[in-house]
């Protein structure tokens, strides 16, 4: 009577194992269950292995029953295993939760370019787009390039030590970027389209609107047929690029020794949109004028071209315009910097506001 007892034993084994599977609370426990009931030394495994020892007529029934138990157990273990794994992953993910509001790593952003550098680059890029090359020049300069070749007569007051830093009788710190007009023309034939950014110096006692060192950007365009109207067009593009697409520019007569005609260039106020008004008050930026003086310019004086005639600048054959603007002035206007001296103080609380 081996058959009934074997079958009964299999059933017992099956329900015992099923209970164990259900009771397993972790993947590792479930593995223990699997080894215990389905492993090589498990009773069920032994039973299956011993089937061939049974009489032939019993083999079929017992084998079938044993296989059924095994398959069922395997299915249950797989299902239970998947559920346990999912639960365990769920638990681990929950454990891994971070405070996503803590600072990132590294917890600081990048550094900053100085505001003046940032604006200088912006201007350079605008003029490169308009077809100008970018040149730089010496800051320690000859009086010849700074004044003489720019048509300043020997008695011109700007030459006095009250207005110019001197290193020797003939050598000074350039008072504007304009000497590069002459150097650029000496160095290459027309046509020439250049802008020259750089530091310039004047012995002004520092106050809110004066510092002894500041930055300018010079422009020079010489060709056979450059006109004052071209100057207006170029500066209009500049004004719109820097101050906004709806800006207009206005040319007024002015005076500079090295341009004739000379013009002062105003841009329509970008704060009040050229109305002069801020609500019922005067616009504080343009002081109600609707226009802001932004730079000086003009047609290059024939006398200046005369100094570089040997390099191909015959004033009867070529002509052109020049302009010069103060980069700090743009900084003050555009970003509301109240005091020029702050720019060279290099306080990081100011530096970190710009140029990221």
């Amino acid at each position, binding site marked *: 009577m081996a058959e009934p007892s074997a079958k009964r034993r299999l059933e017992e084994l099956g329900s015992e194992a099923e209970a164990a599977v259900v009771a397993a609370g972790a993947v590792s426990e479930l593995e223990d269950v699997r080894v215990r009931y389905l492993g090589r030394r498990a009773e069920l495994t032994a039973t299956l292995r011993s089937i061939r020892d049974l009489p032939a007529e019993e083999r079929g029934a017992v084998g079938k029953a044993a296989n059924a138990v095994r398959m069922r157990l395997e299915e249950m273990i797989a299902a239970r295993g998947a559920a346990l794994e999912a639960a365990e992953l769920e638990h681990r993910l929950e454990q891994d939760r971070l405070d996503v509001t803590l600072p990132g790593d590294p*917890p600081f952003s990048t550094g900053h370019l100085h505001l003046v*550098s940032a604006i200088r680059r912006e201007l350079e890029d605008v003029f490169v787009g308009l077809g100008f*090359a970018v040149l730089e020049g010496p800051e320690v300069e000859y009086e*010849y390039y700074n004044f003489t070749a720019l048509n300043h007569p020997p008695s011109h007051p700007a030459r006095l030590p009250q207005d110019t830093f001197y290193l020797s009788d003939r050598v000074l710190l350039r008072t504007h970027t304009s000497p590069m007009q002459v*150097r650029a023309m000496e160095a290459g034939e027309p046509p020439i389209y250049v802008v020259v950014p750089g530091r310039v110096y004047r012995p002004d006692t520092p106050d809110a609107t004066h510092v002894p060192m500041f930055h300018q950007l010079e422009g020079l365009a010489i*060709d056979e047929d450059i006109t004052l109207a071209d100057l207006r067009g170029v500066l209009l593009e500049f004004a719109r690029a820097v101050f906004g697409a709806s800006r207009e520019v206005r040319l007024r*007569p002015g005076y500079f020794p090295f341009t004739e005609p000379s013009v002062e260039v105003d841009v329509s106020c970008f704060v009040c949109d050229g109305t002069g008004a801020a609500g019922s008050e005067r616009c504080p930026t343009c002081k109600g004028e609707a226009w802001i003086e932004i730079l000086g310019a003009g047609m290059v004086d024939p006398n200046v071209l005369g100094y570089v005639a040997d390099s191909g600048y015959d004033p009867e054959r070529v002509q052109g315009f020049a302009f010069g603007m103060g980069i700090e002035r743009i900084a003050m206007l555009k970003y509301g910097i109240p005091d020029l001296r702050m720019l060279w103080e290099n306080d*990081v609380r100011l530096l970190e506001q710009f140029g990221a």
Partner: protein
Amino acid sequence: MRVPVAWLRSYCDPGLSASQIADVLTMSGIKVERLHRVGVGDPAAFVVGRVLEAERHPNADRLSVCRVDDGGEQPRTIVCGAPNVAGGQMVAVARPGAVMPDGTHLGEPKLRGVRSSGMILAEDELGVGEDHTGILVLEDDGLAPGTPLAEALPIADEVIEIEITPNRPDAMGVYGVARDVHAVTGTPLVEDPTAPDPEPAGADRAEEHAHVEIADPEICLRFTARVFEDVKVGPSPAWLKQRLMAAGQRPISNVVDITNYVMLISAQPLHAFDLDQVRGSRIVVRRAHEGEALTTLDGVERRLSSEVALVCDAEGPSGIAGVMGGQVSEVSAKTTRVLMEAATWVGPNIMRTSRGLGLRTEASARFEKGLHPELAMAGQRLATRLMIDLCGARLVPGTLDAYPKPVGRRRVGLRLGRIGALVGEAVPEDEVHTVLERLGFEVAHGGTGQLEAVVPPSRDGDVQREADLIEEVARIHGLDRLPATLPARRRAVGRMGPAQRLRRRLEDALRDRGASEVVAYSFTSPSALERLGVDPAEALAIRNPLSEEGSVMRPLLLPGLLEALGHNAAHGRPGLALFESAHVYAAVTGDEEGDGSDPVRAAEEAPAGARPARESHHLAALLTEAVPPTWRAQARVADFYAAKGLVEALLVIAGIEWRIEPGARPFLHPGRAATVRGAADGRELGWIGELHPLVERAWEVPPAAAFELDADAIAELAPARGHDGYRDLTSFPAVVQDVAVVVDEDLSAARVEAAVRAGAGELLRSIRIFDLYRGEQLGAGRKSLALRLEFRAPDRTLTDAEVAERRSEIEGALAEIGGGLRA
């Protein structure tokens, strides 16, 4: 300069508001600074009054109760607090309801029990002056009570304040300003008030009364003088005082006021002498003797240099030419004979004198711009009329006129086609004629498409060439009418140069690694350099610095960075990374052009492109913090390796080969300082190091590491981008080997690396030191460096045998320097 609008309108009245006139001037070349409204609201409530009597207020010691005749049927009762009020005075009266200059409305208040029905005014209450010590007492020169005050005082006017550019001395006279208004608007301009010349009287000659002489024609182009007799000195009439005050001048006496008035109309300054006080009746113009002294009209004794031009009489100086008269021979109430001077001085000389003395006057401001000698006689003519009309004077026949080199009128040609070619828009020929004629030019045809213009004396300094005439036409035609066009740009291409692009890239790299850019002054102090151990004598010195603080040009960027660090550390931000990108300066060295005596290159007039000093663009950084503290890691202070890491990053970006070797600098920790060199030619590219402790102390900054690189030199070495072609680094795998090398402590990493490279041969692609270990197992004075080596062959996969062979070669090379591979 202040231009009273009412005065301006008396010459040319275009029927525009003051602000419209200001716009006309601004757009035609005379820049308007401000438009003032001076004085009271509605002038009708202000009248001339006579104080009939003034009695002490019954309830207040300091107040007076006045009865004032203001032209009404009954006198008014006015309570007045001024100490100087007295019966009989002609005064300025505001009737109740008047709007004062400050906007308040005058009522009829009770003052200590007495109702005040109006107000007696002080200068400042009328907005015609600053005086508030007492009421304004008017000159009793025929004014009747009830006369509108506006006829006696400039109580309500508009004043256009203009800024005069050096080329427009003509605009320093109201008539010159009116001429621009005329040119733009076409409104008629009255005849030039300086044109008519009154007849003299008498049979004597000016030469019999006085003598003038220019001893130095270098300083005086012309000296004219007229003699007036029977001069009655007294106050000027109200209309003249009003104009002077509106223009910002204080009335003094009729004779002095005439000189100022003529100047304010014509821009030609004049000076009046009491001829009886002119010693020897002789005027000589000469230079001052060095150190000569003179007391000017303002009561200040001034020491003069030999450049100063003097007006002298027979016994000594009586005034500084073109700047200010002296107290000798000043016109006084007793004066009856006047010598009226109108001279032409040399602009640059007057400017130097005025600057040198720190004495800028109405006269010097005009002379320094350069006046034409013809204007002197224009001034004399107008002054003569006023001397006769206002002072009852007799003009003695003849003008004393020292005029060594008479100057004619300038003639300038203009090709009409050039106007359009230069400004971009053609101006019709008849408009060109009209504009120039309105500006006072005489215009004649000068052949086909050309004209010739005779320049008026008042514009002689500014208009000398064709381009100048074109400017005149363009500014009146209207610059703002020009179209906006763009140049054709033949052959010109806009771009930045390779050095500029590289510099931006390097600056960006520092910025993106957390450093912030500073901009510091290019000059520093000698003591700052001394605190760095740098000899200030080698720096370029400024002859006229604003202060010692900025007296030498910096030879390195470090001082500016230290100052910025000091500033921020003092303001609670010690943890920083700062950089600057700017020029440094040095004298040209011996082998360069230049003479030894001058720290900067000496040059002839045209330097032909030479540069007077050695300037290079540097890039420097100063760091106190390599990694800021975070919530899960400690801060890391910046040390040598932090600075070196940045330098290496920059050099990789530049694409150049370099080497770094020990290199001391006086301001760096001697054991933590290095020089950066180009690998190819050994050229010095800069330095890296930690600050010397003594420098930290001297500058009061926290410990910091720094570097400074020569961006120009790096740009020269940097290869053009895209220079190398493609290399195949993927077809065959690399073999990575880690080795630990044990060597003596003082053997540098560079030596170890060199030995490893020598042994590894060409198959070694890269080498990286990833650990440094010291420990007892190694023995005293030994260290272990861990290196990761990457081997690769371009054409095959390396075999284990090949790599093993390299490893044994490396072992051999290391043995030669006393090192070995650790198992």
